């Protein structure tokens, strides 16, 4: 019931908002609804945490009516992403300007997105998963294209086509797996997990799933939509994309790629990992010399998700656990990052790093919060990313020492571009645009509270998540 509520409630809110009846109150309506959803998600999360083996299950047998089985399940893996989604959406909603153009449909699309995302993370029937997976694309497409900046129309179409191509390959793989299940065929995850897929069949399956996920994550060389799309999106769109939606691809790797194609993952990762690693270094190096703050975040994100993928595909428990934990942390951190970006742009009207400087002097509270998020991003001990990255590197080291050493170097690169950026924005001489930079208001500070809280909570006490995950990883 809890899972159904988590999907239905945002959907109903969204439909209500679409009618336009909420008018200027749209933001409040959406925000309150998302808070309620968050509370429900926490309740569900507690149930799963208390009994990690079973998880929550909702099986509405609607085969006769809807032609598909509404089979939802929230296990330890799902719950992490459901909480991530339901935690971030209220923050994203609250950060939006009140005088947004056409607010009703904007907030309606975000709520629709939330509904689809929770659906992706809780589906336990392949077709249902695919439906939510594709459905999540439409709101973000409209958000990017309608509220985006320059060229947003062209870019969002490119993004859409790119990801649709990827997911169609996934559809082929799903249909193929369906034929392998014993008659009467079934799309349920469990029936897929029980398959003994011959190695020769695992290779095309791996390629099809990997392509779909690699485009979504995005991994090098399928990343070309990402920087453009982040840049063109309104910042709330970027938060949704980077914070939650990209996790869909990583989630897919854990949920399908590793269990279904385990032999190929075991043997073939050695071919895939160097390419991903190259992408990580590539993203980090471009980020170092990036004059535009939003693009810098985009390239940094490219590097970070690459590291996560490395951990997941390193095919051992450390790497996978670390990867999953890091997915959660990255979601929180990147939204925090975009929030800082948004505040800077709102105050200074520019995201060109060379036109910024000296903010720390006029806005110490903002500088402190920005610093915390930044340090979390470079994986300082006691912050959330540290545990994840450490486990990933440990996993990678177990798998292949050379790869692990090179991947370890990218952490240094990360520190280089992050600190260089911080120094140029926060310290040094004040520029015309930052002269009158006011410090955070109370409301803005409140937005950061849940982010900072989870940075330290996961950083200091990660075992409450890791314990829960152990069952999943096995």
């Amino acid at each position: 019931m809890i899972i159904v509520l988590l999907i239905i409630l945002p959907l109903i809110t969204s439909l209500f908002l679409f009618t336009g009846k909420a008018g200027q109150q749209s933001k409040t309506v959406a925000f309150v609804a998302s808070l309620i959803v968050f509370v429900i998600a926490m309740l569900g999360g507690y149930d799963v945490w208390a009994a990690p083996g079973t998880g929550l299950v909702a099986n509405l047998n609607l085969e006769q009516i809807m032609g598909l089985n509404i089979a939802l399940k929230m296990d330890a893996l799902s719950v992490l992403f459901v909480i991530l989604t339901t935690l971030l959406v209220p923050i994203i909603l609250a950060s939006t300007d009140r005088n947004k153009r056409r607010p009703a449909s904007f907030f309606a699309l975000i709520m629709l997105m939330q509904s689809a995302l929770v659906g992706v993370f809780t589906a336990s029937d392949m077709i249902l998963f695919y439906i939510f997976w594709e459905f999540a694309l439409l709101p973000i497409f409209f958000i990017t294209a309608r509220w985006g900046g320059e060229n947003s129309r062209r870019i969002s179409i490119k993004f859409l086509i790119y990801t649709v191509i990827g997911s169609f390959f996934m559809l082929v793989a799903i249909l193929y797996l369906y034929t392998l299940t014993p008659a009467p065929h079934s799309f349920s995850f469990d029936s897929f997990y029980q398959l003994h897929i011959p190695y020769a069949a695992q290779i095309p399956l791996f390629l099809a799933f990997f392509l779909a996920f690699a485009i979504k994550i995005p991994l090098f060389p399928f990343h070309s939509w990402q920087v453009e799309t982040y840049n063109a999106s309104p910042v709330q769109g970027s938060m949704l994309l980077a914070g939650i939606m990209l996790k869909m691809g990583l989630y897919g790797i854990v949920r399908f790629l590793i269990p279904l194609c385990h032999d190929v993952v075991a043997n073939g990762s050695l071919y895939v990992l160097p390419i991903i690693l190259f992408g990580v270094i590539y993203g980090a190096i471009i980020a170092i010399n990036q004059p535009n703050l939003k693009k810098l975040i985009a390239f940094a994100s490219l590097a970070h998700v690459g590291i996560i993928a490395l951990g997941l595909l390193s095919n051992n428990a450390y790497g996978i656990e670390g990867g999953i934990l890091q997915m959660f942390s990255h979601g929180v951190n990147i939204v925090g990052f975009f929030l800082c970006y948004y505040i800077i742009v709102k105050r200074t009207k520019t995201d060109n790093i060379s036109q910024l400087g000296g903010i720390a002097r006029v806005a110490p509270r903002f500088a402190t919060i920005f610093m915390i998020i930044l340090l979390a991003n470079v994986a300082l001990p006691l912050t959330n990313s540290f545990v994840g990255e450490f486990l990933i590197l440990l996993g990678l080291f177990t798998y292949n020492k050379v790869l692990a050493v090179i991947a370890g170097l990218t952490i240094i690169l990360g520190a280089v571009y992050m600190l260089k950026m911080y120094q140029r924005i926060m310290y040094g001489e004040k520029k015309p645009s930052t002269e009158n930079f006011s410090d955070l208001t109370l409301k803005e500070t409140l937005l950061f509270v849940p982010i900072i809280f989870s940075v330290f909570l996961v950083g200091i006490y990660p075992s409450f998540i890791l314990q829960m995950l152990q069952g999943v990883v096995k």
Partner: protein
Amino acid sequence: MYAIITISIVAILILFLGAIRQTKFLLPVIFVGLIAAFVVNLLGWNQNIHYINEMYINDNFTIAFNGILIFSTLLVFMLVPLYYVSVKHTMEDTYALILFALIGGLIMTAFGNLVMLFLGIETLSLSLYLLAGSKKEDRYSNEAAMKYFLTGSIASGFMLFGIAFLYGACGSFNMGAIQTYVTQHQAAIPVMFTVGLILIAVGLIFKIGAVPFHFWVPDVYQGSPTLITTFMATVGKIAAFAAFFRFVNASFMSIDFLWKTPLVVIAIATILYGNLTALYQNNTKRMMAYSAIAHAGYMLIAIIAIKGNDAGVLLLYAVAYSVATITAFTVIMMVRRKTGSFSIKSFNGLAKQYPLAAFALTIAMLSLAGIPPLIGFSAKYNLFATAIAQGQLMLIIIAIIGSMISVYYYLRPVVAMYFRPTSNEEPLHPVSQYKMTILVFVILLLLASIVPGLIIHLI
């Protein structure tokens, strides 16, 4: 059978009403008549009655498909008051022809005998030839009618030849007798039989508009009055597919080695050709014509993957295709009335002026493209899953690539409506009367998206 009689009476009544100049009763009579026919049709459920020496078979397959045909016609007639708004002369002949065409379609889904099949096809086709040219003052409409008539009658000729050959080989027109003949001779099928089968298949492939007999589709769809195009694209196509399905299912299942591979090739060619060519169309009506060709390719998959009496997937596809196509054409007609053009540019900024129409076209297009959770997706995935369970992996991969391509062209009008600035001219004609009709279509489309399971398990 009684549905056909009901509609025939209504059609004759319409002509009579026209003759005595009582035109204000035309549409009410049609609506009442079609609803009555729909109900009468449903009364035969689960009875499986054969009429006239098994020439007409009233089983659940017939009833389900006839239900869609009658319902689609009803939807098309809902558009009549909007489409023929400025027409001065009386319309009774056009309305009656649409009804006669529908009767042809109803016969096609139910034939138990090749003569009946031919009769159905010709009743539908002859009416459509006339309807295509019903905009008498328009050069393109005349051209469309002429083209359709010439090519169509050649196809009919092929078909008649084929029927004669089959009769020559089997000594019967009856599908049951042909099946008996096939099971007795499946080890060594005579050449005469094969030639007959091929010729009939040519006729049917022409009617469904699949490659290589698709060439008439774009010109005829574009040239015909849009309302007639809507009717052709939905009722005409679904009837032809139901006939094709019954034809194969009734008698030729045991010799699928003869026809399966060629049909797979045709389906692949149709899907690729339809989708790729649609990419380049700037005229929405023409784009819909190529999309109709592509959908013929998808529906062929249902015939390739035919197994026993599993017609549910074709039925679901037919419903999905029909409702979405009629919705799309409604908005296209509305835009045409407003701007005088069918080009994609004329959709610019529509979302601001008519959000409901823009929304309707968006979900119709997304459904046709097969994007979840709309009914078009359910229809496609059921179709693909059925075919893939029978080892047609290559075909399905190509079908999926085709759907992938289609996303691009289906989105073009959507992008134009939402993201391009309008040319800012005031509407030329009031279009608010479309509102109710479009709302009905939107509700239908969304409702159908929720309950695909009910449709697929119907037969």
